[in-house]
């Protein structure tokens, strides 16, 4: 099962090469979008008209697309995402986004774990509880902003009613103040894991995976011998779950933008929203590239896990994971 042979090594190397090529492709795609956009960052400066001849040369805006592609690849190899023009003008984008990106990726990961746990909880239920959880799964299809809006306003209305009636004193989380709050963060993570169809999709997929493994020959044979089957479940569930993680991680990253804006969390999503509004091209494109890189890395890890667990997993499947 864990034996590493030359075929696995060569396939793993191929997967890494494909991931690197995909990252280069994503960089060039984003650069093409920037090149094709009407106007440029100089338009945003108050004295842009007078500085245009100098800034065009300095920022490389007078170059052809192929030259800009080459510059983008050189900067990518150095980890240079450019400088921000709006948040703190002149500050290196990577320095600006490093901490928010770490926070956002942690929240996205926790939200995904929440979805998986909630999905797993529904597997073992039967009867009325199963039907109730099915209805809950349907309700989870509600758009993320709507679920957030209803949750926040309901909590606020109930809390305000309790405060007005004298039952409780004003709690720290009431009306979601601007200071950091664990309640806000936890609520945001829960909503990201629950709403926008995340719970529903995870639940349906986990049920499909469970049924497929449950009715497989090796599990039935193991069960008939009276041996525990959980190892078989776990071992055979990991590859499809890894594929599911890869498929759904972009949705969680997109949902983060909405949640961080609504909950006033200081993450990469809120930074991206503000950068897009301010048309800070370097910051917005830098964050987009970081998100794309994270998806590529997740795919790479999932492919390597699948290759390790199932050495018969072909290269075409690994590259399409």
């Amino acid at each position: 099962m864990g034996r590493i042979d030359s075929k696995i090594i060569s396939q793993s190397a191929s997967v890494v090469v494909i991931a690197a090529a995909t990252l280069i492709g994503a960089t060039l795609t984003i650069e093409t979008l920037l090149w094709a956009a009407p106007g440029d960052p100089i338009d945003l400066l108050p004295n842009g008209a007078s500085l245009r001849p100098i800034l065009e040369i300095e920022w490389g805006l007078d170059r052809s697309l192929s030259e800009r592609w080459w510059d983008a690849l050189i900067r990518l190899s150095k980890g240079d995402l450019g400088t921000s023009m709006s948040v703190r003008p002149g500050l290196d984008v990577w320095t600006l986004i490093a901490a928010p990106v770490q926070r956002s990726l942690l929240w996205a990961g926790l939200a995904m774990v929440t979805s998986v746990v909630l999905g797993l909880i529904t597997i073992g239920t039967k009867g009325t509880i199963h039907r109730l959880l099915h209805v809950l799964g349907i309700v989870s299809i509600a758009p993320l902003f709507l679920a957030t809006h209803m949750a926040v306003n309901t909590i606020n209305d109930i809390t305000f009613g309790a405060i007005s009636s004298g039952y409780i004193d004003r709690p720290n989380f009431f009306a979601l103040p601007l200071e950091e709050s664990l309640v806000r963060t936890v609520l945001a993570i829960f909503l990201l894991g629950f709403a926008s169809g995340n719970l529903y999709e995870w639940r349906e997929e986990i049920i499909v995976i469970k049924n497929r493994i449950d009715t497989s020959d090796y599990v039935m044979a193991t069960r008939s011998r009276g041996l525990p089957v959980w190892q078989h479940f776990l071992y055979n569930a990991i590859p499809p779950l890894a594929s599911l993680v890869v498929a759904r991680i972009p949705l969680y990253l997109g949902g983060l933008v909405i949640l961080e804006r609504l909950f006033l969390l200081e993450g990469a999503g809120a930074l991206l929203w503000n950068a897009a509004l301010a048309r800070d091209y370097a910051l917005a494109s830098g964050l987009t590239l970081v998100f794309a890189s994270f998806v590529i890395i997740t795919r790479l890890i999932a492919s390597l896990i699948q290759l390790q667990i199932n050495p018969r997993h072909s290269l075409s499947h690994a590259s399409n994971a």
Partner: protein
Amino acid sequence: MPQMRKHLASWILIGLSVCLAVLTIVLEPSLANGTDTLKLNQPPTPSSLLGTDHLGRSVAWRLCFATKAFVFPALLSMVVACALALPMAALAGYYDGWLRRFYLAMHGIISTIPRFVFILLVLSLYGATNNVLAIAIGVAYTPTLSEAIFSRVNTLRSTSWVRAHFSWGFSNATILWKFIVLRACSTTIKKHLANIFAYVLVVESTLSYLGSYGVQEPNPSLGNMIKFSWGYQEGNPLAFIAPMTLLLALVLSAHTISTRQKAQ
């Protein structure tokens, strides 16, 4: 039978929203945007079926005009996604060679960028208009649609009935487009068109709710109707319940249609 009724109800609701959107082309915008300070937060009456909101505007008329915000962008997104995804995915799935490798590479690249992030970037670069939003959503959804078509065509190309059609003298182009894409893949295409409709509805509502992008006040959108009505529920709760219910109903309808197509 209950499934059939749900499916029928879903189609009726979506059809109704499309008809309302088309109807608003010939109606006066003042029906939705006209304020009346003497009729703030009025409950439903025979002349105003859902009452008025905090600015005295008719909630029913605003709901009608709100359909325009997502129906036409949804139709444009469907056209863009189909135009981009169908030809390349069908050809890559049917033929081997450089086209398949090129398609797999492009699919791998475009699908790494989260959809909402891509849409935000495009809106920032190209302007926050409804047409740009629709095109951005269409392009963002292309990898999903193309992957489904590619898989289906790739599976079907080696089936016996395709070989039989080939031996009967049908050309590869006819087999691919007429038999495989238009007939055998029609269920898959319908499922994804329903998903695109729901996605445009959700994204447009989200952007107008968050502000700055999407349809902004005073023009109605389900998102901004929900945002601006919640705090004014004293007097007419329908001002936020109605758009919220319509939004959920449309999302569930699209989900029902998509799920049924998947089951077929």
